[in-house]
């Protein structure tokens, strides 16, 4: 659906995007992830044809963006960063204007505008001026502008920035819903968001791709140890001794003492063992009562930090 081949963007001597290549298949939701200034927006601006790459080609649904821009642009609905909108238009006027410049057929225009307004939940505010809307609604108006004209590809640049938690969940579920019928590329620096919505993640740092994989694979790939948190009632302080008996535990650390006289510890082991069962059995033998036993999931956060800090030693490019 979208092919990005050896794309480079230079501003004078500064290289914003450095020879990146990746592919997005039909119906996929792909997340572009990276710290601020990594080149996410530049990449998206190139895919949408807003700026031209210095080198490389971008192909959208078979149309080369530099050779057939009109056809390629028709396949794309773009929600730019910072949601630029015409503040003096009403919501309906704006969506209609977007439909017009996207050359939606005149006879179908009203029907399609109506459909998009319903889909994005803007029916109540359709007659309001955009400048009087809250941030969350503006975001939806921008989304409606991207959606109208039924593009096959949606490019969403930081779609949840500046929203409150309720609005974030709403926008996320809208994106998930849209993902059933569209190919979506979205950028974010919020990792949990990407792991919830996207099927694949492209991690970019300093203009380079450092990993392309599913969120789950990235998590397991980078975690080198397993961590278990255990809360115990242990009046006689037997836990250190008990822990030493379990050879799988590589490290034990006291975290805190709770108000009900229980203590929380962190236990570390190698990546391939699950400590929970062993700990449960062994501690029971030692008369240590377990109140809580919980395995810490390696998060995408860890994966991300590791990849960014690790610089360019590739973790995986598959």
């Amino acid at each position, binding site marked *: 659906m979208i092919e990005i081949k050896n794309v480079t963007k230079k501003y004078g001597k500064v290289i914003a995007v450095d020879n990146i290549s990746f592919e997005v298949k039909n119906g996929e939701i792909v997340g572009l992830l990276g710290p601020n200034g990594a080149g996410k927006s530049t990449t998206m601006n190139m895919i949408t044809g807003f700026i031209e790459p210095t080198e490389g080609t971008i192909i959208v649904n078979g149309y080369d963006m530099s050779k057939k*821009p009109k056809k390629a642009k*028709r396949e794309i609905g773009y929600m730019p960063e910072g949601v630029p*909108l015409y503040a003096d*238009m009403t919501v309906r006027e704006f969506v209609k204007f977007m439909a017009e*410049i996207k050359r939606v057929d005149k006879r179908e225009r009203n029907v399609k505008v109506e459909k998009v307004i319903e889909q994005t939940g803007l029916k109540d505010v359709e007659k309001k001026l955009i400048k009087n809307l809250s941030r969350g609604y503006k975001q939806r108006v921008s989304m409606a*502008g991207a959606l109208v004209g039924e593009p096959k590809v949606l490019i969403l640049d930081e779609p949840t920035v500046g929203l409150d938690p309720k609005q974030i969940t709403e926008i996320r579920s809208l994106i998930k819903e849209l993902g059933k019928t569209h190919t979506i590329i979205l950028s974010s620096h919020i990792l949990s968001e990407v792991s919830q919505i996207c099927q694949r993640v492209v991690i970019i740092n300093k203009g380079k791709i450092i990993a392309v994989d599913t969120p789950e694979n990235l998590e397991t790939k980078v975690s080198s140890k397993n961590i278990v948190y255990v809360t115990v009632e242990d009046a006689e302080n037997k836990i250190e001794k008990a822990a030493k008996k379990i050879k799988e535990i590589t490290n034990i650390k006291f975290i805190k003492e709770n108000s009900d006289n229980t203590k929380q510890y962190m236990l570390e082991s190698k990546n391939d063992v699950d400590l929970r069962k062993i700990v449960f059995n062994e501690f029971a033998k030692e008369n240590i009562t377990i109140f809580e036993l919980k395995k810490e999931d390696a998060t995408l956060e860890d994966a991300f930090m590791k990849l960014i800090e690790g610089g360019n030693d590739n973790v995986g490019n598959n």
Partner: protein
Amino acid sequence: MWAIIKKEFKSYFTTPIGYIFIGVFLIAFSVSFYFTVLGYGSVNFEYIYYSMPTILVLAFLIPVLTMRTIAEERKTGTEQLLLTSPLSITKIVLGKFIAALSIVLITELCTLMYFAIICHFGMPHITTAVITFIGFLLFCMSYISFGIFASSITENQIIAGIISIGFFIITWVFPDFNPNLNALSFINMFYNYTQGQIDIADTITFITFTITCILLTIIFLQRRKSIK
């Protein structure tokens, strides 16, 4: 392109700019009307167009009309919506140009009421009036296209406005210092129309100047895509 024309035209009247342009121009026009027609008893409609107050306000009104066209889109980021749509840059620029020109046309139509008043009291020369109308449109067209170009090279509306005002004043005042520059003065070219003659050379100058400015704007926007 129709969508752009419609949107631009509407925005002239959702913001005060359209009203300011038409209103202030008509005030200046009325002042001229008072002095030439009522003061001297002249029935020369075309003199009102060429009079000092009319040209003076125009030096400021046309830049006000054009300064936001592209600069504002860039500042607010809405240019991303336009430039990522299937519309070509040429159509976007032309749409904006036509919308601005239509405001001038509306203003000209408003001045017809003065013409009606003159007709009531005397016999103005109709052909000259029509030629003046055409000349004025061509004259404004040149400055509008320059104003749009000025708006495309900066994201600051004020700077775009000042560049256009400066250009207007330079092309107005300079020829007075050096008679050799007379041929370059748009005002002098417009003066020929108010004399009832359509000068081919002048007409071609106005039109080529307009086309050049529009082309420059298009090239500039196109080039920004690769350097931005």
